[in-house]
């Protein structure tokens, strides 16, 4: 079943044509990876999906519903989580307040507590930092917080924008393990990465984005063997 679908989507920043008609499909239970070099339009794709910017043309549907004209806060409520590029931690809110923000629309305190505990079970370190300001966390801890916060609304599909950026290899490993765990438990994942090797190691399928266009789409296995991908993104000749 299709969870998220983009059909011929275009996006602009003023006169800059950042997405030139991309089509992407994400099915229930999948990890789909969007790879591409810096400036290819990966973040723009996620921003366009979550309503932070609106497509200039094309259709975006979430669970069969057209969301292309909806505002981000409404899209989030429709079941889409977005962990943005750079993590978007509120620096002057505590870890606890950051998590509470993630559940802003939830009024049931028990539910909030339950989901927070789930976050701590994934990242025990967050529990020790509960009353610390978000801005004082290390990069890895911020990424953990961003993911835990993204889960506070229990989204059906979670989009992650370069979760490995700037992290030490051990932490990258940990974050990717968690993404895999989340997926095993039923969360559909759309994963944006420059680290193509890592991304393809856990993804089922992938799309390669180049200057605003999808140039290849295939299963993760095949992408790893694709000469273009090997040359451009996996550092092989």
């Amino acid at each position: 079943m299709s969870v998220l679908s983009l059909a011929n989507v275009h996006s602009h920043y003023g006169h800059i044509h950042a997405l030139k008609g991309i089509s992407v499909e994400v099915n229930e239970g999948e990890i789909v990876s969007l790879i591409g070099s810096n400036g290819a339009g990966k973040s723009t794709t996620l921003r366009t999906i979550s309503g932070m910017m609106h497509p200039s043309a094309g259709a975006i549907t979430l669970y069969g519903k057209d969301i292309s004209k909806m505002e981000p806060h409404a899209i989030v409520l429709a079941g889409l989580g977005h962990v943005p590029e750079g993590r978007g931690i509120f620096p002057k809110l505590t870890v606890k307040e950051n998590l509470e923000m993630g559940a802003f629309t939830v009024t049931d305190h028990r539910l909030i507590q339950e989901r927070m505990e789930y976050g701590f079970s994934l990242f025990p370190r967050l529990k020790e930092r509960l009353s610390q300001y978000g801005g004082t966390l290390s990069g890895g801890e911020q990424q953990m917080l961003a993911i835990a916060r993204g889960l506070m609304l229990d989204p059906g599909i979670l989009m992650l924008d370069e979760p490995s950026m700037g992290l030490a290899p051990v932490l990258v490993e940990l974050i990717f393990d968690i993404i895999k765990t989340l997926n095993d438990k039923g969360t559909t994942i759309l994963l944006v990465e420059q680290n193509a090797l890592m991304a393809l190691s856990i993804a089922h399928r992938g799309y390669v984005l180049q200057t605003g266009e999808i140039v290849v789409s295939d299963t993760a296995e095949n992408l790893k063997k694709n000469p273009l991908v090997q040359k451009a993104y996996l550092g092989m000749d």
Partner: protein
Amino acid sequence: MNRFLQSINARELIRPLGQMVVFSLGSAIVLSSIVLTLALGLDQTAVGLALQDKYNVSLYTYTLVNLPQVVIDGLTIGFVYAAIALGYTMVYGVLEFINFAHSEIFAVGAFVGVEILIALDHSGLLRSASLGMSYVLLTFAIISGMVAAGALAVTVERVAYRPLRGASRLVPLISAIGVSFLLQDLIRLVEGLTTGDFNRIFPSFGNFDQRLNFGKLALGETTINLGISIKSIIVIVAAMLMLMGLNYLVNATRIGKAIRAVAQDRPTASLMGINVNRIISITFLVGGLLGGAAGVLYALKFTRIDPFVGFFPGLKAFAAAVLGGIGNLTGALLGGIVLGMLETFAGSYMGVFTMGAAGSEYKDIFAFSILILVLIFRPQGLMGENVGQKA
């Protein structure tokens, strides 16, 4: 009810109260010491002798005798400035934009409150009101001014600022200045058409003009009258209650947390399911409510208002917000109190200290000199930081 009481975070109520007391006492003590030292130093000079000649009183005694009243007046206007300054600072904290129309939001609040009281006066209700009733009517006037100003602030944002949000920072600023002139003229137009009079007078009723006397303090051969007018008490207490309420809203409620989140990172806040536009509207609403109340309180204290009544208080409150650190709630409180005290001290003593060369009409120089000095030497203000942070 019990659960409601339990959920109230007492710390968030006590802390701002403590801050207000500290800021008030602190500025009163510092400024009093300065003028008393100056008075002692100048007592035997031409300045002191001139006063002795004219009024047969030493400069030091003159300074001391007037001190209690100066402090009370300074606090009264200081709390009014603080309430207005919070409107500037809240909006700046969330949008990084200076709402220059805020002075007219204040003026509209003042006019609505005063017009309601004038209407009640004409109907005879004010004169026949019992003491308790006169407080109810005053409260009603203040709340009406708040509601009108709050609604106006929300409308102005919706109509004149929101459509310009994507534009460069200068554009909404110009729009704000335009709205400010527009509202001034609108008040003039409405007042001209309905009452034919631009100057409106706060009706005299209740016991607000009376003074409470706490007795006399004997100091050598001089005595100091200790007392405070009831209206000053009302202004200070009402402003304190509102400032505590605002502090509580921002620091201890879910909406307040959302306001802080939006101030820190607007795009990410929207990804939390927060309706950012609604939070921005609430921010303008809260600023407008405070500004409107400040308007009615200002009219209560100074009695006469005209369509330009917002200009100077608005500008000074803006200076106060910058002084405290624009975007910082505690800073607005500090800046308002300090500025109100400073200008009242200057207005009261500059005349005698300069032998009449620079009288109280020059007191505004202080507010604006401070604004300029702060902008040059400490542009982040006394307290720096912004709304995003817990006050």
